C-alpha cells in the first residue's frame, strides 16, 4: 500500500509538467504552425493539458474575495469576446476558473462540491495562465523567426558536433548543416525551429517561470534546495536542446535510409510533425518531474486578505497593469497612418529592360491582345487604381525632379539595375515623406530581387532568392487577414499568393504586414530559366513563418515591400483580396505621419509599467487574479481602440471617376472561376468568361450576399441551389433601382435561373436543349452553339433555329438579360487556357461575349446619346490603339471631335472633360491621368 501511495505521489508530481507539455503541443494544432489547424486534436490536448493541473494544490483566493473575483471575471469577458481562436481558449479558461473560485468564495457548496469546484477552478486558472504565457511567447517567437530562421554562430557548429555524436557524418557551414547519406548530401537548415521548436519553447516559457516562482516563494529553510534543483533543471534543459536536435537529425536520416531508391524523399515531413515534436517533450517532462521540487508553489495560496490600508496600493497597481498592457498592445498593433497626401502615384517603367519588360502597365489589355504576356501585365490594376489616384508612369531614370511630383513611388520587378544616383534619389524621396512600394518576385527571376535589393537594403529589408510554398498543399498559400491587421490590410479579408519569395528582415525596423504561417521555402534553381525550383521537399528549406510583406518607416516617409508581383497581373488581380491589397498598400503609403513610429517608446513605457506592477504586487502580495484580468481588459480595450483608429485614419476608398463594376455572384453560383489565374478549363468553369470582362475596361469582383448589389452589373453564371425569398426580393430591388442583371445558364435540372427570372416575367426552358448556329439581332458574329436553353418572355435578341435563346427585359430603371448558351462560354469551349491565342472561330465566340457585355453595360447609355454600338466600338478601338502607340493627344481629340459625338451628350461630356477638367476634391490632379487614356475617357463618359 505504501508503495502504491508513493507511486501515486510520484505520478502526481509529473502531471503538472505533462499538462504544460500538452498545452504547449496544443498550439501546434491550434495555430496550424506547420500543418493546417486540427481543431479536434487541439481541443483534446487542451482538455488533457488542463486536466494535468487538477493534481496541483488548490488556490484559496482569500486575497481576492467575492467582490474582486467578480470584478476580475467581468474584466476578463471583453477579451474573451475579442480574442481569436485558439488564443481565446486561454482567456476563456481564465474566466471559467475565476468563476469557479467565485462560486466557492461566494456560496456554500457543501463539503464535497466546494473542494471539487475549487480544484477545478484552480486547474482552469493555471492552464489559462500557462496558455497566456505560451501564447505571448509564441507570438514573439513567430515574429522573430519569420524575419530570419537562421541560427547565429556558433550554434550551427554545435549542432553539427552533436550530430556527430549520433554517428552522422555532418559539417556546418554558414547556417547549414551538411548531413551525409548515400542518396544525397542534405544541407539541413540550422534554424531556430530545429534547435528550439515552438512546442519546446512553449514548454520552457511556462515551466521556467513556474520553477523560478516556486523557488522564489519557497520556505526559507528549503529555498536553497529549490534554487539548486531549478538550476539543475535549467542546465539539463539547455543540454537537452542540442541533443534533441541531434536526435531529430538522426530520425530524419533514418527515414532517408528507409526510403526506397525510387520513392520520393519525404523525410522533411518529420520536422513538421506535431506529434513527433509533442513526443519529444517527454524528456523535458521527465526532467522536470524527476528533478523539480515536489511541492511546487503556484498561485497565491495562503495570502493574507486585503485590508483597507492596502486599497490605494491596489488601485495604483491596477492602473499600472492596465496602462502597461495597453501601452504594449498599442506599441505592437498601432502604426499611425497620419495625414493623407495628394494621391500622386508614379509607377516606375524605366527599369524593365526593353527586351525583357515584365509586368508593364502601359499596354492595354484589350480585345486584340492575347497570349501569355497579355496576362503578365499590370495594365488592369494600373487602370483600376487610376480611378482612385492620380496615376502616372515614368520612363526615365529616377531623380529628385521626378520624385518631387509624386507621393507614392511604385518600383516593380525591375529587370535592370538602378544606378547609385537613382537609389540615392529614392532614399531622399522617402526621407522627406514619400511612400515607396517595392514589388518583388520569387527566386530572383529575371534578377528582379538582385536589382530591387540595393533599394530594399536601405530600409533593412532583403528579398530572398527563394520560393515560398504551403507545407500541407504546395501551391496553396492563402493569407487570411488576422483580427488586428496593419492598416494597409484592414479592408482586405483574404487572398491567395501565387508564389512569393520571402523577406529577410533581420536588420529592419518596422513590422510584418503579412506574416505567413505553415510555409516552407526553396531557394532558386539556377538551372531553370525562371529559377523556379521543383517543388519537392528538401533539407535546405526553411519552414514555419515567413514575412511576405513588410512595412518600414524611414525619415518622414514609409516603405512597403511586397513579395509576389504575380498576383497583381491582369490574369488574377481581380480575384478576391488582391485589388484590395493594392489599394490598401497605396493608401497606406499615401499618408504621412510626422510623429514617426511610436512603437519603441510605447513598448518601453509598457515594460516599465509592468515592471512597476510586479514590484508593487510582490511587495504587497496583491490580488494576482484581478491584476491579470485587468491586464486582459487593457489588452481588449486597446485592440478595439487601435482598430477603430485605423479605420478612421484610412476610410474605404471611393472611386473618383465612374467605373463599370461587374459583380460575379458566389451566393448561388459556384461554377469554377480562376484561382491564381489558373482557369478551370472544364465545362463547369467560367474563368475565361470572367476575365474577358477586363478586356472591355470593366472591373470584376466576386461577391456574395448583400455586397453583390453595389455594382453596375450582377452576373449569375449557372445559378443553382435554393434561392431564398429575401434574395429574390433583393435582386428585384436592385434591378428596379437601375442595376443590370445577366444570367448565363444552360439546361440543367438543378438550375435556379427561373427562380430569379420569374419576378421579371422571363423564364428559361431547362428540359430541351437546342443546337445550331446562334444568330443575333445585331451584327454580332454567328457562332455554332450546342446544349442551349430556350428563353421565354422579354425581348429576344439571339436565336438558334429560330428559337429564342437569349432575351432582355427592362424592369424599373434597370434591365435583366438572360443567355441560355452557357456551355458555349465555358472554359472548355473558350480555349481552356487564358493564354489562348484564338483562331477565327474562337475569336468570333469572344466577339459575341464582348458584344453582349458591351450591350448589357452600354445599351441604355448609347440609346440616350444616339450613337450606335458599332460606332462606339470603332472609336474605342481607335482610341486604344492610339494609346498603345503614344501619339499626340490632339489625335484623340480629332477622333472624338470628328465623330458623330458632336452635339450628343457624350460629345458634350467629352468636351467638358477635356476643355474644363474637373477636379475631384480628394484628387485634384486626377484629370492629368484622364487626359492620357482616351479609352477610359470614353468609358467614363458613357457611364454617366
Amino acid at each position: 500500500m505504501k508503495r502504491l501511495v508513493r507511486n501515486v505521489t510520484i505520478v502526481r508530481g509529473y502531471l503538472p509538467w505533462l499538462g504544460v507539455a500538452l498545452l504547449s503541443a496544443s498550439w501546434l494544432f491550434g495555430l496550424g504552425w506547420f500543418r493546417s489547424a486540427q481543431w479536434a486534436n487541439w481541443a483534446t490536448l487542451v482538455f488533457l493539458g488542463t486536466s494535468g493541473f487538477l493534481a496541483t494544490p488548490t488556490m484559496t483566493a482569500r486575497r481576492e474575495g467575492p467582490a474582486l473575483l467578480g470584478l476580475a471575471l467581468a474584466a476578463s469577458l471583453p477579451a474573451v469576446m475579442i480574442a481569436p481562436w485558439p488564443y481565446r481558449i486561454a482567456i476563456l479558461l481564465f474566466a471559467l476558473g475565476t468563476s469557479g473560485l467565485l462560486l466557492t468564495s461566494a456560496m456554500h457548496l457543501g463539503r464535497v462540491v466546494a473542494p471539487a469546484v475549487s480544484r477545478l477552478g484552480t486547474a482552469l486558472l493555471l492552464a489559462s495562465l500557462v496558455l497566456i504565457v505560451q501564447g505571448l511567447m509564441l507570438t514573439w517567437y513567430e515574429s522573430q523567426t519569420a524575419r530570419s530562421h537562421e541560427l547565429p554562430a556558433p550554434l550551427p557548429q554545435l549542432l553539427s558536433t552533436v550530430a556527430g555524436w549520433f554517428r552522422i557524418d555532418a559539417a556546418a557551414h554558414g547556417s547549414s548543416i551538411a548531413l551525409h547519406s548515400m542518396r544525397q548530401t542534405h544541407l539541413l537548415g540550422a534554424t531556430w525551429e530545429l534547435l528550439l521548436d515552438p512546442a519546446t519553447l512553449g514548454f520552457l516559457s511556462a515551466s521556467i517561470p513556474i520553477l523560478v516562482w516556486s523557488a522564489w516563494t519557497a520556505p526559507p529553510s528549503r529555498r536553497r534546495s529549490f534554487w539548486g534543483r531549478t538550476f539543475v533543471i535549467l542546465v539539463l534543459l539547455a543540454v537537452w536542446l542540442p541533443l534533441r536536435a541531434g536526435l531529430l537529425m538522426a530520425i530524419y536520416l533514418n527515414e532517408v535510409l528507409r526510403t526506397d531508391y525510387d520513392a520520393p524523399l519525404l523525410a522533411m515531413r518529420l520536422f513538421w510533425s506535431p506529434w513527433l515534436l509533442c513526443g519529444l517533450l517527454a524528456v523535458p517532462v521527465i526532467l522536470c518531474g524527476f528533478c523539480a521540487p515536489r511541492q511546487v508553489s503556484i498561485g497565491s495560496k495562503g495570502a493574507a486578505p486585503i485590508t483597507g490600508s492596502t486599497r490605494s496600493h491596489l488601485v495604483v497597481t491596477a492602473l499600472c497593469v492596465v496602462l502597461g498592457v495597453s501601452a504594449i498592445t498599442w506599441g505592437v498593433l498601432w502604426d499611425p497612418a497620419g495625414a493623407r497626401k495628394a494621391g500622386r502615384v508614379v509607377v516606375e517603367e524605366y527599369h524593365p529592360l526593353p527586351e525583357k519588360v515584365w509586368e508593364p502597365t502601359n499596354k492595354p489589355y484589350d480585345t486584340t491582345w492575347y497570349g501569355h504576356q497579355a496576362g503578365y501585365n499590370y495594365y488592369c490594376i494600373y487602370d483600376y487604381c487610376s480611378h482612385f489616384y492620380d496615376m502616372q508612369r515614368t520612363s526615365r531614370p529616377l531623380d529628385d525632379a521626378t520624385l518631387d511630383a509624386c507621393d507614392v513611388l511604385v518600383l516593380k520587378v525591375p529587370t535592370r539595375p538602378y544606378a547609385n544616383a537613382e537609389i540615392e534619389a529614392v532614399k531622399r524621396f522617402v526621407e522627406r515623406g514619400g511612400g515607396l512600394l517595392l514589388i518583388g518576385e520569387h527566386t530572383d527571376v529575371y534578377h528582379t530581387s538582385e536589382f530591387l535589393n540595393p533599394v530594399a537594403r536601405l530600409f533593412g529589408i532583403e528579398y530572398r532568392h527563394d520560393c515560398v510554398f504551403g507545407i500541407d498543399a504546395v501551391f496553396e498559400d492563402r493569407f487570411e487577414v488576422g483580427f488586428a491587421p496593419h492598416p494597409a490590410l484592414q479592408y482586405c479579408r483574404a487572398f491567395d499568393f501565387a508564389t512569393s519569395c520571402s523577406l529577410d528582415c533581420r536588420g529592419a525596423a518596422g513590422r510584418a504586414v503579412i506574416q505567413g504561417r505553415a510555409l516552407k521555402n526553396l531557394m532558386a534553381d539556377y538551372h531553370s530559366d525562371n529559377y523556379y525550383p521543383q517543388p519537392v521537399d528538401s533539407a535546405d528549406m526553411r519552414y514555419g513563418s515567413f514575412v511576405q510583406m513588410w512595412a518600414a518607416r524611414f525619415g518622414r516617409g514609409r516603405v512597403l515591400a511586397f513579395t509576389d508581383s504575380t498576383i497583381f497581373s491582369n490574369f488574377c488581380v481581380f480575384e478576391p483580396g488582391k485589388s484590395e491589397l493594392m489599394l490598401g498598400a497605396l493608401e497606406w503609403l499615401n499618408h504621412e505621419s510626422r510623429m514617426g513610429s511610436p512603437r519603441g517608446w510605447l513598448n518601453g513605457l509598457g515594460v516599465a509599467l509592468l515592471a512597476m506592477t510586479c514590484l508593487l504586487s510582490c511587495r504587497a502580495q496583491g490580488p494576482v487574479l484581478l491584476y491579470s484580468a485587468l491586464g486582459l481588459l487593457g489588452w481588449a480595450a486597446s485592440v478595439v481602440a487601435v482598430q477603430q483608429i485605423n479605420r478612421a485614419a484610412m476610410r474605404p476608398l471611393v472611386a473618383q471617376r465612374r467605373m463599370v463594376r461587374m459583380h460575379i455572384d458566389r451566393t448561388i453560383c459556384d461554377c469554377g472561376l480562376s484561382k491564381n489565374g489558373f482557369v478551370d478549363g472544364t465545362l463547369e468553369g467560367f474563368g475565361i468568361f470572367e476575365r474577358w470582362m477586363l478586356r472591355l475596361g470593366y472591373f470584376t469582383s466576386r461577391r456574395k450576399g448583400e455586397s453583390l448589389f453595389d455594382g453596375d452589373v450582377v452576373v449569375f453564371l449557372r445559378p443553382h441551389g435554393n434561392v431564398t425569398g429575401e434574395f429574390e426580393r433583393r435582386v428585384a430591388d436592385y434591378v428596379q433601382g437601375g442595376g443590370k442583371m445577366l444570367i448565363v445558364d444552360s439546361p440543367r435540372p438543378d438550375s435556379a435561373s427561373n427562380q430569379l427570372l420569374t419576378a421579371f416575367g422571363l423564364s428559361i426552358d431547362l428540359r430541351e436543349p437546342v443546337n445550331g448556329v446562334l444568330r443575333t439581332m445585331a451584327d454580332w458574329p454567328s457562332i455554332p452553339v450546342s446544349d442551349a436553353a430556350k428563353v421565354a418572355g422579354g425581348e429576344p435578341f439571339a436565336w438558334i433555329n429560330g428559337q429564342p435563346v437569349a432575351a432582355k427585359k427592362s424592369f424599373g430603371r434597370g434591365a435583366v438579360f438572360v443567355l441560355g448558351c452557357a456551355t458555349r462560354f465555358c472554359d472548355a469551349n473558350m480555349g481552356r487556357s487564358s493564354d489562348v491565342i484564338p483562331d477565327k472561330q474562337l475569336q468570333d465566340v469572344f466577339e459575341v461575349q464582348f458584344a453582349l457585355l458591351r450591350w448589357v453595360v452600354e445599351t441604355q447609355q448609347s440609346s440616350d446619346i444616339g450613337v450606335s454600338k458599332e460606332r462606339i466600338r470603332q472609336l474605342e478601338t481607335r482610341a486604344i490603339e492610339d494609346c498603345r502607340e503614344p501619339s499626340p493627344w490632339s489625335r484623340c481629340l480629332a477622333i472624338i471631335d470628328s465623330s458623330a459625338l458632336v452635339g450628343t451628350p457624350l460629345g458634350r461630356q467629352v468636351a467638358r472633360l477635356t476643355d474644363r477638367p474637373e477636379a475631384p476634391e480628394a484628387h485634384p490632379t486626377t484629370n492629368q491621368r484622364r487626359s492620357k487614356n482616351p479609352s477610359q475617357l470614353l468609358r467614363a463618359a458613357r457611364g454617366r
Partner: protein
Amino acid sequence: MYGMLPSFLESYGATTVISPDLSADDLRGADALVLFFPNEPWQAGQLDRIWHFVREGGALLLVGEHTVRESEGGNRFNDVLEPTTMRVRFDSAMFAVGGWLQSYETAWHATAAGISDNENDFGVVIGASLATRPPARPLIVGRWGWADPGDEENQAAMMGNSRYDAGERLGDVVLAAEQPFGRGKIIAFGDTSSFSNGINLACHPFTSRLFAYLADREAQPRPLWRDLIAMAFAAAMVIAMAAIRSPLMLAALALILGGGVYVGTAASHQANEVLPRSGAGGNLAYIDVSHLEAFSRESWREDGIGGLQLTLMRNGFLTLTLPQLTAERLDGASLLISIAAARPFSPQERETIRQFVERGGTFLCTVGRDRIGPSEALLADLGFRVGTVQSSTGSPASGFVPLGHFKTPYRQDSQSPAAVRFHAAWPVVCDDPAAHFVAVFPPNVPLIVIRNLGQGRVVVIGDTCFAMNKNLEHEDGSPFEGMRENADFWRWFLPQLVQRSAATAAEPTRATAARSIIPQRSEP
C-alpha cells in the same frame, strides 16, 4: 565488369596474371588466387591444383553470385569449396535497406576493423548467402536482411520472389566467410559486386585490405594468443561487474571497455591500411568524398557521378574515391577532383592540395556560387573566385551573376569547334593573368579556367553539377537532346590535364612500399 582490377592491384604494387587455365606455372610463386564467378566446367586437375596451392600457403578468394545452379546441378563455387565447410547457397541475400547500409556486422578481422557501414563500404549488393560451420567463420554478415531461396523456374536469373516468406532465414545472413585450409586460407564471397569497376572505386579501403591480407602469407584473422588475452580480459570484466556495487564504478568500467574497443579498432584500422603508390603512368584519379560533396553517392542518380567515373576509366584513369584528404593518399595520385564540398577544407588540407598541385598534380574543382561557401577559402588560396565577374578595373564586380543552363563552344581554334553544356553556370575569376579560359559565356565571361601552379594545374569549373550524370551521361547511355557533347568534352579535356612528371609518378610512397600485395614473381 572487373577490368580495372589489374590496374587497381598494380597501383598497390602487385603483379596480376590473368590465367586462362590455372596451370601449375601460373600458380607457381603466386600469393593469392582469385576466382571470379567460375562458371565453366572444371578441367581435370584444376581443382586439385587450386587446393594444393592453398594447402601450401596460398590464399584463395572465391567470388560467387546469387541463385546459380548449373544445368547438371550444383555450381562451380561449391566444387571449389568442397573440402571446406563453406557453401554458396542457391538463394539471394536480400537487404532491408538498399546496399546493406547500416546493416553489416563484421568479424574482428584485419580487413574489416574500423570500416563503418554508413555507406556500402564492403560493396556487397545482392548475392548469395553462405552456409558455414566451424572451422569456417563468417567474415561479413548482413544483419538486417533475409535469404530468399532461388526459383529455378524464374527467368529472371532464377531469383526468388524478393519478399520475405515464412520459413526463410531472417537476419544475420552470411555474406562472406573465411576458413583456414592447410597452410593457407580461403575466403568466399556470395557476391561479386565488391570487386566490380563501379563499386570497387568506393569500397577500395576494404578491398585493398582484403587483397593485402590475402597476399600476406603470415596473416591470420585472429591469432590464438590474442584470443586468449581477450578472453582473459572478458572474464576479468565479468568478475569485476559482479563484484562492483557502485554505479559510478560500473559506469567507469563501461567507459574503459568502450574506450578499449575504440582504441583497439582504431589501431587495427590504422595498422592494416594500405595506400596506392603512383603508377608508372601517373593515372590515379581521386574523387574527393571526404567533404560531403554535392553529388549523390548512388552512382546513377541524376546527381550521381557514375558517368564521370566511367569517363575517367575510359580515359585510362584508375579512379578511386578519396576518403581522407591526406598527403599520404595524394602522393600516389595525379588528379584530384572536388565537386562542391559542403565541409570546409581545413588549413592543413588546403596546404596539402597546394603542395599536391605544386608537385605536379592536377586539382579540378567544379562548384557554382550556390555551393561555394566551404570551397571559397581553398579556391582563394589557389587564386580563384566563383560567381562574380571581373570589372573593367580588374576588381570583382558586386553581386553574383547566375548564368543558368546553356551550351557554349570550346576548341574554337581547331577545325571542328564543339560545344560544352553547363547545368547552371557561374563566372570564374582567376588572379593569374596567364590563366587559360577553356570555355566562356559569350562574349568573354570565363567558365572553365586553368592555371598552372608549380608543376601542376588547377582547373575550376563554375558549375556545381557540371560533372553530374544529368549533365554528362545517362545510365542507359542515351544522349542529351541527341548529343553527347560533354562526354566528348571530357575525352578531349582529360588528356590535357595530367602531365605529371615521371620521376614523381614512379616514386613509391612509404606505405605502399611496405605492403605490396603480390610480390614480384617470375614470369611463367
